[in-house]
């Protein structure tokens, strides 16, 4: 589905991502973990086109998409959520989502000014798509609430819905459960699983090991920009390099459940 090879990004002297190769499989959840500053967000930015790689190649379904702008990537079916997503606080949840499907519509500004049938149809379509995405993330009841009034966890779900409204084939989620309590984390995890089951390819950055270990089909571990391990959650959590760089020695002892940090 999505393959990267030899991906490198340098900021001045610092190599934030260094020679990373891996792949994201269709319908699978691939997690990227690593210490703070390891280059995870940078890695996603490179894949999504927000940064142009210094070296390396990104392929989407075999097509070379290296250095393509984010909006083009979105057209090709790559969606992402951010570590923090800002929404329009004083607008309704649904209104916030309508722009999500804009990229799949063809009507121009002229259509809108002349209020053509095409513009009206596109508007309806975007609204329908937004409702569909909301119901997928389990928020249909909140469609008309003002964003300022919904909870943090609901905002995270809205951010997912926004990504889903673009009709993606692959979604990259950056710390979707950051600052969310364990109970709600579990709910988000179920939602992510549901996305994968519906055929989406999922990329996930997360520090909450409980969630990562329970969810991921594959884990890629970055440290100082380099890939130090890759494999199933089981393999990775036993890898001494990973334990030393990231998880800590007693992670294996405490078990994934309790060290849910």
């Amino acid at each position, binding site marked *: 589905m999505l393959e990267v090879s030899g991906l490198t990004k340098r900021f001045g002297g610092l190599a934030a991502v260094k020679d990373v190769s891996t792949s994201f499989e269709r319908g699978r959840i691939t997690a990227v973990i690593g*210490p703070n500053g390891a280059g995870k967000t940078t890695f996603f930015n490179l894949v999504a086109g927000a940064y142009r790689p210094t070296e390396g190649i990104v392929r989407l379904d075999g097509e070379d998409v290296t250095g393509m702008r984010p909006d083009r990537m979105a057209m090709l079916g790559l969606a992402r959520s951010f570590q923090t997503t800002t929404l329009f606080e004083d607008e309704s949840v649904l209104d916030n989502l309508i722009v999500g499907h804009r990229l799949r519509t063809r009507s121009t500004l002229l259509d809108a000014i002349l209020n053509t049938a095409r513009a009206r149809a596109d508007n309806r379509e975007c609204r329908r798509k937004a409702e569909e995405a909301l119901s997928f993330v389990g928020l249909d009841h909140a469609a008309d609430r003002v964003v300022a009034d919904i909870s943090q966890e609901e905002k995270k779900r809205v951010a997912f819905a926004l990504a889903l409204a673009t009709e993606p084939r692959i979604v990259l989620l950056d*710390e979707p459960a950051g600052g969310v309590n364990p109970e709600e984390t579990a709910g988000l995890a179920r939602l992510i699983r549901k996305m994968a089951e519906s055929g989406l390819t999922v990329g996930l950055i997360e520090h909450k090991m409980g969630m990562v270990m329970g969810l991921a089909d594959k884990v890629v571990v970055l440290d100082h920009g380099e890939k130090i391990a890759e494999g199933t959650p089981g393999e990775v959590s036993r890898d001494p390099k990973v334990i030393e760089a*990231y998880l800590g020695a007693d*992670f294996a002892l405490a078990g994934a459940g309790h060290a*849910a940090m």
Partner: protein
Amino acid sequence: MLRCEGATLDYGSYRALDGVSVHVEAGELVVMLGANGAGKSSLFLAISGLRRLKAGAIRLGGRDLAGAKPSAIVEAGLVHCPEGRKLFPGMSVEKNLRLGAYVHRRDPARSEEILDEVFGMFPILREKRHDPAGSLSGGQQQMVAIGRALMGRPKVLLLDEPSLGLAPLVVKQVLEAVKAINAAGTTVLLAEQNAFAALQIADRAYVLENGRIVMEGEPATLLRDEGIRRAYIGA
């Protein structure tokens, strides 16, 4: 030592704190548990004078802090190590730490000693003392933030989610440092979502929900509570 009574705080029409009463005795390490948005940070910000209470009182060792400026509160011995660190990213690590002792600028000798202690506690900071704080990794920045708070010679230290966004390995190191600080005699109020880890080092804990205290007790009691386990630890 520190006492809040009926603290109430509004953001516009939204009530973030609703009659919160907590107390922390001298030498204690108290943990404030609560989900995202429960109001932990709001409570801390109110205590350190960055937000105005709508109602209620906050006392530090008998002194009423109502209307006191943040700078006066720091001088009174209450130091807040905030969520998100709030460092001075362009300044060197050392300058960050030294500014922590700003209210004690008339007593530089003692500050030198504390600076040494901080470097002793976090040796990596001594190594990076001339680097700009913004260039450090997340965990190291958290160390600077704690160190900076210590430079203020707190009698009471408020720590707001020092583990937020940190790798598991680093979380452990940070909490160990907190424990050591408390052991050295500083009273600590710690906000955490990671209940399990925090309760390991706490003397006592509160649970905050929707701006209200819903539970108080010893760590062991809380750990036994089924609801707490489900909500904050992940069964």
